[in-house]
């Protein structure tokens, strides 16, 4: 009886213990990687050493990669990321699709070799198909061809898409897609222009 109780307690505690071990192990993995990185890089141009420090989302996703982090740990960060989205001050979501297309084509921005006084590109074509003319598109993300045509332009859809481009990590914590708004890659006006590329009926995306 006594032994049995002990066994039950032991068995019950085991998964907890191993989860705790896995977690400290993973946390160490990030800390050790960061230490190696700090010794292996030097600041250059606009890219300072602070670029190597991880925020909570980056840390959690790295610690569990290539697996997804436990839902319990991911949930809090998903909410925080979604709450961090800033919607356009004037309530207008759509800018100029032609400028948006140029932003989607542009791959520079934020690299140490880039001029920080110039606006960054979004490089959407690197990962997404967007229209029928540009065949040099990547496939890391889904095709966005007919994005607005298929989904319509309701306020809710505009808001949802804005928040995804602003911070995809509010929806898919470890997404490969950069957080164009939260990380200050694109300005509010640039985000509007890219939104117009997705939604404007005249945009090649919807042709």
């Amino acid at each position, binding site marked *: 009886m006594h032994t049995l109780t002990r066994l039950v307690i032991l068995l019950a505690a085991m998964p907890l213990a191993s989860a705790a071990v896995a977690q400290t192990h993973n946390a160490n*993995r*990030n800390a*050790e*990687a*960061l230490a*190696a*990185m700090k*010794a*292996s*890089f*030097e*600041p*250059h141009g606009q*890219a*300072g*050493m602070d*670029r*190597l*420090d*991880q925020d909570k*989302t*980056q840390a959690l*996703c*790295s610690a569990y*990669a*290539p697996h997804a982090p436990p839902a319990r740990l991911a949930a809090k960060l998903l909410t925080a990321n979604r709450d961090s989205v800033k919607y356009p001050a004037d309530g207008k979501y759509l800018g100029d699709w032609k400028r948006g297309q140029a932003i989607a084509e*542009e*791959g*520079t921005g*934020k*690299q*140490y*070799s880039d001029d920080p006084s110039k606006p960054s*590109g979004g*490089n959407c*074509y*690197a*990962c997404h198909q967007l229209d029928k003319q540009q*065949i*040099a*598109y*990547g*496939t*890391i993300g889904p095709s966005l061809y007919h994005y607005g045509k298929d989904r319509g332009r309701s306020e809710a859809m505009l808001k949802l898409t804005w928040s995804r481009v602003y911070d995809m*990590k509010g929806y898919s914590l470890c997404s*490969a897609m*950069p*957080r164009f708004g939260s*990380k*200050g*890659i694109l300005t509010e006006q640039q985000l509007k222009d890219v939104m117009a590329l997705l939604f404007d009926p005249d945009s090649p995306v919807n042709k």
Partner: protein
Amino acid sequence: MRAKTKQHMFWLAIVVGAASSFTASLVWAQSATSSDPVSQYRAMFGDDNPADLWVMRGKDLWQKPRGPKNVALAKTCDLGMGTGVIKGAYAHMPRYFADTNKVQDLETRLLTCMVRDQGLDKAAILKNRFGDGDRKSDLEALSAYVVGASKGVPISLPMSHPQEKRAYAMGKALFYYRAGTHDFSCASCHGQSGKRIRLQQLPDLATANPEAQKTYTTWPAYRVSQGEVRTMEWRLGSCFRQMRFPKLKYGSEVAIDLTMFLAKNAEGGKMAAPGLKR
């Protein structure tokens, strides 16, 4: 040799303007929609690889006495297979070297030999680590020569010393380390098979697989778009720039650990470098 230089110059003229930046490579990918530059190159020149010029220069640099100490690397340098032995050396690197008490990749090992044995100036060698036209890189030439002597040799790493095991484990952690303005890690672009950025195929380098073998066994390589032979140190530095990280130091721990991880995932693949790349 002269004909080769001419072909080389001709090609350089064609690719002038194709710079190393990510956008440039994207623009390049765009303009070469019908067939990629490497196959265009092959169509013009067959399997002739301009890297041969680097191999020849590297052979000289390896065999001739040089530096203040006037000794030849062939007489002093141990790349892990015994003094002066280059056959198969690259296929078993990175590895632990007792004399430096470090895990080293080919590039850092060559540096050790050039500085310690030949008495050459480290800063001067590193200043020209990446060749650019008339400014030649001795490290790139030597790498091209040494790696050529591993053709057909299957990659297999010693992986017996604790530091070698640690380098591999660190390499793996680094491969998945996300940071920077764009949240990128190596796995963002090389974590699965069958994806591409613009038109460039992205090899899956995260696990041991045939794609990882094919990729690793063809480095160092002649880069058609740059008209230079580049080594893995350059490739990693270039991907880190695209990741918006600060500048990777040449011969750093991160470079060596990641190379260890990539090499391990390529084990069993037969070396076929210097390769020919976009």
